[in-house]
């Protein structure tokens, strides 16, 4: 599975490694719905660190679609909410 961390790049993860991420996913989702910035930052950092350590970076010259796209490590609540509510215009050029 290929995971993209916005502003960082892509990582290739084994299915097993992906399953290990579920707990982190829940933590991030809770933080977003509770609008808790500190919790979001902590949960995101833990999640992204896990991906960086368990995954292997996808080389720059490979053109691969990601299965999952994760917000950048220093994303604010507003950033994540904006990502989720992003209008269909403008984000993807071309």
């Amino acid at each position: 599975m290929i995971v993209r961390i916005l502003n960082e790049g892509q990582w290739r993860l084994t299915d097993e490694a992906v399953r290990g991420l579920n707990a982190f996913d829940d933590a991030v989702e809770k933080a977003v719905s509770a609008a808790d910035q500190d919790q979001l930052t902590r949960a995101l950092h833990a999640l992204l660190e896990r991906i960086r350590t368990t995954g292997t970076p996808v080389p720059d010259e490979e053109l691969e679609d990601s299965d999952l796209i994760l917000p950048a490590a220093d994303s604010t609540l507003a950033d994540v909410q904006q990502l989720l509510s992003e209008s269909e215009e403008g984000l993807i050029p071309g």
Partner: protein
Amino acid sequence: MSGIFQRISLIFRAKTDKALDKLEDPRQTLDYSYQRQLELLQKVRRGVADVATSRKRIELQANQLNTQADKLTNQAQKALEIGREDLAREALTRRSGLQQQLSDLQVQHAQLQGEEEKLTRASQRLQAKVDAFRTKKETIKATYSAAEAQTRINEAFSGISEEMGDVGLAIQRAEDKTAQMQARAGAIDELLASGALEDPTGIAKDDITLELEQLASTSDVENELARMKAELSAGPGAAPQAIEGQQVPSQQPPTQAPPPPRLDAQSPQEYQAPPSQSQEAPPAQPQGDLR
């Protein structure tokens, strides 16, 4: 793994699909997309340059603030030397205000540096992907049937457009950040220009310097007076000696005059002597220089 990340990737994919749906003949629009990629690449590079400019501006301002802080430290030192603790305190208070500004600037500097590194990295990544896309584009155009081309085009497009979406977000973010920084930097520039940073109280322009200068000139006057008085009182022994060196031997032996009258007589001599020397000297030099 489900939840918000799937939603985020679905949003990205929806945009790609939408972009692809718009294309009536994907093969012909490969070149058009490539053009867009090059434009985006240019935009990222400009973004890197903009962030670097903002970073340098902050460095410049930090230097200026540092100079101001050093100046205030020196002022405090001088004020203490002449026993004006109140002035020293004022100078140090202002310096601590500057240091607050400085540490703010350092935080901003670190943020901009981080942003610059990320954008630089994004620019490298996009460059590599654009190169890969160009290769694929040529292969697709040359080799495959229309049906095969469609699949390959979709693959190439989704890979590149995800990257473009990511980079697009990064640029937007960097632009927002630099805009904020520039607003702040502009405010600090104005402060520095108006001299208000030197005088947070707004009462007068750098009154510490004024007062120190006043004190310094007063003490200069006092010092000068003291020096002159010392010269005068040391007169019989020290200063006049040079002038009297030749005169005294010839005058003293015959008269044997009492000391008090001599003092009166010497004072005028002492004051007259320098002008007469300085009048003689100038003519001598120009003559030598001119001829």
